[in-house]
């Protein structure tokens, strides 16, 4: 008998789910596939397979996050985010301490390659804002330390740091508006920074969830 279109799609999705499932969990993909055979209704079978595909990718991601290279990449990303938080306070401090040589060196790493463009912003920044950025950077380092120690609670300091960073970004935006100096003119670069931070946080959360599961 010719099988229905939905059933064929369901079978194709299930085959794909079995392919993406980590090799160590092949028993589970066989369990999901055999369960599909027992489902008579094609519509339910399609929903079943779509769910199994999600489960397959989810397990693949969990498995990938347990590899040393994924951990190393994530550690580098978190360290990079911490450095990013420390950069602005350092530039402000150096400028206010009149170490113009170092300010020039740091300015080369900003948009426009010159710290002098940012002088109105450096002068208008309230003193609590660098403290907030430093706190965010330290929280990123705490998250990194906890991740390296395979602690369950590494996502919490990460998302706290993300929250502080957002507060800092909103404040910086108002300073930009009052001084009419745009710190990072490229919107894409700004958006990429936020997306990178959120993706890193998500992966960290997934990684630590998995660590709890495997520890038992």
């Amino acid at each position, binding site marked *: 008998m010719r099988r229905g279109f939905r059933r064929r799609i369901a079978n194709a999705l299930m085959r794909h789910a079995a392919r993406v499932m980590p090799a160590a*969990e092949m*028993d*589970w993909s*066989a*369990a*999901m*596939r*055999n*369960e599909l*055979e*027992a*489902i008579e209704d094609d519509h339910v079978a399609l*929903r*079943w*397979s*779509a*769910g*199994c*595909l*999600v*489960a397959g990718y*989810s*397990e693949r991601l969990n498995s990938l996050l347990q590899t040393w290279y994924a951990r190393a990449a994530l550690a580098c990303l978190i360290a990079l985010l911490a450095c990013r938080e420390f950069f602005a306070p350092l530039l402000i401090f150096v400028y206010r301490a009149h170490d113009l040589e170092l300010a020039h060196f740091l300015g080369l790493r900003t948009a426009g390659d010159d710290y002098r463009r940012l002088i109105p912003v450096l002068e208008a920044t309230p003193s609590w804002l660098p403290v907030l950025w430093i706190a965010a950077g330290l929280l990123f380092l705490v998250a990194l330390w906890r991740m390296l120690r395979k602690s*369950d609670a590494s996502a919490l300091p990460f998302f706290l740091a993300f929250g502080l960073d957002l507060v800092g970004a909103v404040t910086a935006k108002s300073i930009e508006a009052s001084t009419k100096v745009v710190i990072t003119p490229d919107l894409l670069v700004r958006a990429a920074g936020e997306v990178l931070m959120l993706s890193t946080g998500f992966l960290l959360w997934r990684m630590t*969830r998995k660590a*709890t*599961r*495997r*520890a*038992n």
Partner: protein
Amino acid sequence: MGRKPIHSRQTNRLLGAMLKDPLAWQHGYALMKQTGLQSGTLYPVLLRLCDQGLLEAQWRESDQPGKPPRHVYRLTQTGLAFAREQAAPARGKQGFLREAKA
């Protein structure tokens, strides 16, 4: 010392469903129907609970002729104790004590 298992809302729903008949072996599709969880949520939870030793799984021949064997699941003794512990606050102390006596 082992860490505390994660217990999400979905995990609790599954444990609650399995607690109704803790000795029975149940297959994935039946559990999906009982809990209302989608397979994409159900299987990672099953996998995790098996990893944590709260569930045991085995292959059983299908009731339907010509169909492949099916994976079935049941609470372990640890799982049963854990599921009861999770269910206790929801039912209240009285209900929990009644169940323990039974």
